[in-house]
């Protein structure tokens, strides 16, 4: 149970990890950002978007956040840059661009 909230992941010792694959508190993903190996990022052009929500439905990581006005915005903390949203968008409103090194 890696729930020593006072410690970062790299401060946890093996003694902290007894039954270490069980997380009794939800929200462990919030502590671990997994989008940092992305090589491309999606850019959404709101002018082309018809708010159909296909990008949100197809995203394998739930990394498109619905906004209050009905548009969608990529959550770059978790987006892996797979490009599925760009492929499924019927309006070609999402383009993938290279991440800068």
């Amino acid at each position, binding site marked *: 149970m*890696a729930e020593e909230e006072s410690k970062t*992941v*790299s401060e*946890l*010792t*093996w*003694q*902290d*990890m*007894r*039954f*270490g*694959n*069980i*997380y*009794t*508190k*939800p929200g*462990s*993903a919030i502590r*671990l950002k*997994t989008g940092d190996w992305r090589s491309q990022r999606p850019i959404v052009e709101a002018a082309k978007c018809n708010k159909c929500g296909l990008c949100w439905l197809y995203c394998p990581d739930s990394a498109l956040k619905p906004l209050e006005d009905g548009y969608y915005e990529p959550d770059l903390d978790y987006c892996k840059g797979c490009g599925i949203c760009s492929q499924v968008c019927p309006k070609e409103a999402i383009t993938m661009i290279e991440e800068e090194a």
Partner: protein
Amino acid sequence: MSRRIALEGSFAAAEAAKMADVDVVAAYPITPQTHIVERLADMVANGELKAAYIPVDSEHSAMSACSGASVAGARTFTATASQGFFLMHEVLYWVSAMNQPVVMAVCNRAVAPPQNIWADYSDAMTARDTGWIQLFAVNNQEIFDFILSGFRIGEDPRVLLPVMVHLDGFTLTHVIEPVVLPEQEEVDRFLPKYQHPFALNPDKPMSYAVISSPDIYSETKKAQDVNLRQSKEVALQVWKEFGDMFGRYYSPIERYKCEGARTLLMTMGSLSETAKVAIDGKRARGEDVGLIILHLWRPFPFEELYQAVEDAEVLIVFDRCISLGGPGGPPFSEVRSALFDRRKDIKVVGLVGALCGRNLSVEQFEEMIDRGREIAEKGSKEIFETIGIRG
């Protein structure tokens, strides 16, 4: 009052699971499967056992279903053998690392090809790094007793680990022997209803086995290793309690006629009883030989091994499996490694035989001891030798 009845090894395993009042059995019922899950299916169908019986489409699914059931807090049981055991291999790691005390009877059979259904430990030994507790039964009574005590050990809140009870394919699974069965109320007292402290519950959301990184994987595995090692102490306590209650006492290493023995033979599983007869004969002729029987393979009982061989000069490890291209059978290489620093003065000799159910006679065990002593004295050209193999 307990009852002494004739039971096939497979039925003894099924009876133990029934008396443990398991909640879920998930199994794939096709060869190399045994009568264990067939009998349990009967028990569920005719109302003897109130459990969910999940017939699945493969052994990978069987262990996955067991994992899901156990995560939900169910007392869970399954059985498999050889190739089926291999198909569930990946899932074995998930069940142990997620601290799910599933109990599984593994009917040890040789690994194909060549196609076969007979006993050896080529399948069992591949599980030694999976993080499960592994117990080896010598006879049908031990199958019953180890499954019952296996649930207690695995479910102990200090342990929370899955347990394999290994029984020899055919030699035990399909052979009828007398087995003492306790009363249900005695079993209920020994093995009360269990509550997994971290069972999934919609009111209290939890995650299992989330993603890890190089930052934390090593710490997680070290904790898992320490937990498995420490489970031995719990096993000792549980077996003491089991013995006080049922009159049969078990230990990680059983010692047979070891007093004053300078030569020891080490065996596992059902052939240990043949080995006992060979030891009896040699003792009757005044030879100072004894037998140690390894019951607990994981966690490896280092302390018990050191104690058992304290007075011995020669230890002959008989392996019923072969590590192709390696330093002998896994028990031989592990035992020799364990003793390397502790006992410079003991010769550890490795002999491999009885693969795929080939019988070994009492005379062959006697020859094995003689040859082992000879190797200890004069050495051998081989790292290990084979017994009863032509050519």
